[in-house]
């Protein structure tokens, strides 16, 4: 399992080049290559990679550059407890659904995250559809897991506010995992 650096780090820029607004989007996208796919175990591993990724980012900025940043750097790393991880499998119809009954929540938490988690995010229905068409050209074959959020303190803040979500999505044709994390950090 290997992080696809270029795709992950260029993602907001790529979306902006397609005229999809990215400012204040409460969603993080990570991409991994996985050629030895082992169902549940691969999904679990890639979910854990999200927290590892966040921990890696905590090491910077470089401490020697100035004193102020040194303080921020002492923040502890996030911990995980894999025994508490549970997931359910979602169909692509449910996951990508933008349907909601009047005054009822969205069927899909992913749509909820996109449209409602950040009041400052300006993306609309067309953007959501366009973004998903770029991300997932073949939706029918995707294997989508929605994970609980009690297995790491990474999700703590989001849990206390408007929600914390993580999905792991495998595309067998491309041997590719997409990890989607929604929470306002």
């Amino acid at each position, binding site marked *: 399992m290997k992080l696809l650096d270029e795709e992950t*780090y*260029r*993602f*907001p*820029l790529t979306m*902006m*080049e397609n005229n999809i*607004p*990215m*400012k*204040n*989007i409460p969603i*993080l996208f990570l991409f991994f290559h996985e050629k030895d796919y082992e169902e549940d175990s691969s999904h679990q591993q890639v979910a854990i990679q999200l927290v590892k*990724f966040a921990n890696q*980012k905590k*090491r*910077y*900025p*470089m401490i*020697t*550059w*100035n*004193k*102020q940043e040194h303080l921020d750097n002492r923040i502890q790393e996030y911990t995980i407890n894999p025994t508490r991880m549970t997931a359910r499998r979602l169909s692509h119809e449910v996951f990508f659904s933008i349907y909601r009954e009047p005054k009822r929540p969205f069927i899909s938490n992913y749509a909820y995250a996109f449209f409602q988690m950040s009041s400052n995010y*300006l993306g609309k229905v067309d953007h959501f559809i366009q973004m998903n068409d770029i991300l997932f050209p073949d939706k029918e074959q995707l294997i989508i897991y929605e994970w609980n959020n009690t297995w790491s303190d990474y999700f703590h803040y989001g849990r206390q506010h408007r929600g914390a979500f993580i999905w792991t999505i495998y595309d067998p044709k491309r041997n590719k995992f997409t990890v989607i994390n929604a929470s306002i*950090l």
Partner: protein
Amino acid sequence: MRLGEKYNMEFLLQETEVLSQKLEEKALFIRRLNLDFVYFKEKNYRNVESHKQAAIEFIKVMNKKSLGYSCVHSTELHCFDDLPIFIKSLAYPYAVNPELMYAKSVLPPAFFSTKCENGKYESSYAYSILSQIYKPQREEIFLKANEYLFPMQENLIIYQWNNDWSNYFSIGREEYGAYLWTIYERETEKFTVIGASMRY
């Protein structure tokens, strides 16, 4: 060709890193300064071309500072303001579109001037340090710091750049101002690049 590959401009890591420490030892700019100072060695000076390269190299250094590795994304994007702003927490590198860059030359006396009429500073450099709404620096400290940072002020070649060619400037554009100056000293063959993207 990748940006900056053709000419060998050297990033002076050591000098850049110890600057804030040195300023502190000399009791200059003790309070938090919203500016980023970065040094480069440029032996093969090509006038404004070198200045442009130094400006782009500066963004690379800012990426190194926040991500741990040097990089920059090139894009043909014309508006950067809708990209995620808090790059640090999201860990996305800053991007640049060199096509959009332009600069104007600033003479040293104008650059270091502290003249201020009706709240408007002649020098945006002075503005970025002296008029910070939350933590202004004292004028005498500003003058002293400049003497230390630039011992030969009259020999400097200074360019001020526009601020809409990279999302490094986004937060400052939204809040208290965003600037970039590239300053070359012929005798020492050194660039001092000062960037500011001032936020609360």
